[in-house]
């Protein structure tokens, strides 16, 4: 505990570094996966090819990837951008399939009816298909978020600061507390980001929690009962 107390600024610094890499990668994976997932969902011929080849990205070992990316993108080996690009690729590998599944999960009756009342294809995508794909998209991005937060630590091996630097440093200097702090903080960051995603989902999809009249009546009855007890 002493180590933690003495190194709070360092822990905060590394957490900040970690978020600065993981959060952009999560957002980019989400945004980039939407058009690709749409293509995979929309054109039957493309589904198998697109999903399989994108999914294979995940099979690339991370260390070589982080070494190859700078050569392609032109960033320095130790630049966080390098890591963001790599993590985005992994995120896309997971998220494209989720996006295709999410768009496929939308009730085709609702899509038909939206077209029948006069939504253009573009309007229907933004106002009907995408919001209704929300629950499955959310499930997908939660997986991406957790996986990205954990993969971010790998960057420490090639010298990009993150919470992973606490493990590498802890190992080299044999400070157990530092290693544990790195692990605990990584899990904590993953949990907090997950919670934030769930809250964003709730705010953007208020209809999901909408209570049916029958349940509302039951809740009201329950409230009355507990009211009687306290009174």
């Amino acid at each position, binding site marked *: 505990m002493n180590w933690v107390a003495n190194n709070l600024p360092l822990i905060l610094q590394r957490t900040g570094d970690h978020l600065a890499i993981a959060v952009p990668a999560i957002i980019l994976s989400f945004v980039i996966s939407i058009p690709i997932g749409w293509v995979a969902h929309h054109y039957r011929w493309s589904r198998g090819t697109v999903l399989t080849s994108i999914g294979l990205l995940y099979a690339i070992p991370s260390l070589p990837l982080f070494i190859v990316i700078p050569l392609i993108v032109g960033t320095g080996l130790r630049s966080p951008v390098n890591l963001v690009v790599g993590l985005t690729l992994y995120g896309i590998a997971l998220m494209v399939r989720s996006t295709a599944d999410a768009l496929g999960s939308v*009730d085709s009756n*609702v899509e038909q009816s939206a*077209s*029948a*009342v*006069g939504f253009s294809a573009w309007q229907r995508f933004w106002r009907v298909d995408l919001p209704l794909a929300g629950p499955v998209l959310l499930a997908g991005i939660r997986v991406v978020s957790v996986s990205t937060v954990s993969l971010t630590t790998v960057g420490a091996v090639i010298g990009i600061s993150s919470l992973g630097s606490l493990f590498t440093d802890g190992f080299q200097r044999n400070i157990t507390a530092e290693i544990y702090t790195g692990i605990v903080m990584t899990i904590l960051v993953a949990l907090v980001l997950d919670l934030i995603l769930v809250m964003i989902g709730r705010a953007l*999809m208020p*209809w999901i929690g*909408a209570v049916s*009249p029958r349940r509302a009546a039951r809740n009201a009855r329950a409230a009355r009962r507990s009211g009687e007890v306290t009174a």
Partner: protein
Amino acid sequence: MIEFRSVTKKFPDGTVAVRDFDLVIPSRKTTVFVGSSGSGKTTLLRMINRMVDPTSGSISIDGEDTSTLEPVALRRRIGYVMQNSGLLPHFKVIENVATVPILNGVPRRRAHQEALTLLDTVGLDRSLADRYPSQLSGGQQQRVGVARGLAADPNILLMDEPFGAVDPIVRAELQVELIRLQRDLDKTVVFVTHDIDEAFLLGDQVVILETGGLIAQVGSPSEIMAAPTNEFVANFIGAERGKRALSIRSTGSGDILVDSSGRAAGILVAPTAPDAE
């Protein structure tokens, strides 16, 4: 007036849903397409607002060939009500009703104001405006569907088995409502159903369809009942089974009408003069 001229629809899988179909649908009347599944009735309905395009032939609305019109704009001026209401689950009731006016560029506030009035029109309490469709009963959802169909004040209202998924009591209520609405609003209604009783109840013109969109008979309910053109129609409307072939039988407590199997079907009363109402 909606006119079908030798319309054929062949789907990519080779099914011919409709073959060489001709029909005139008069304005400000209710026309009902009735037939069993595979009769092409829904395909016919969907060709009116270009959800489905005919393989050959043409459809015109008030003399305008629909193939020359932009589908999205056409759909926004035709009301559409479907089975299971087809409401957008992520829009509140009021937003669902105001959908088409907002797509047409009406300011949100005004569209919502007018949507509230429409809730009155279809007999829904305004307190439901902020609910989501999943929070309503099947009958209420269907009413919201009708309100949405009316929101852009279209001349034409297409209804695709709108009352198919609600229980018989609610269905009867909705049918009566629709008759009232039609009397007040005077739209050209095209209604699809597989229920011949519903067709006779609602239709000014009833179109009985056989497999492949063949017209078995077109006419008013009384014309069809009085003179079914063939055995198919007679069977379909239930004349054959004797459901509609009623006769008078005297019983101890008065005269009753019985069907051909002898089951009591009603009583005979003196005709009421129409202007007495």
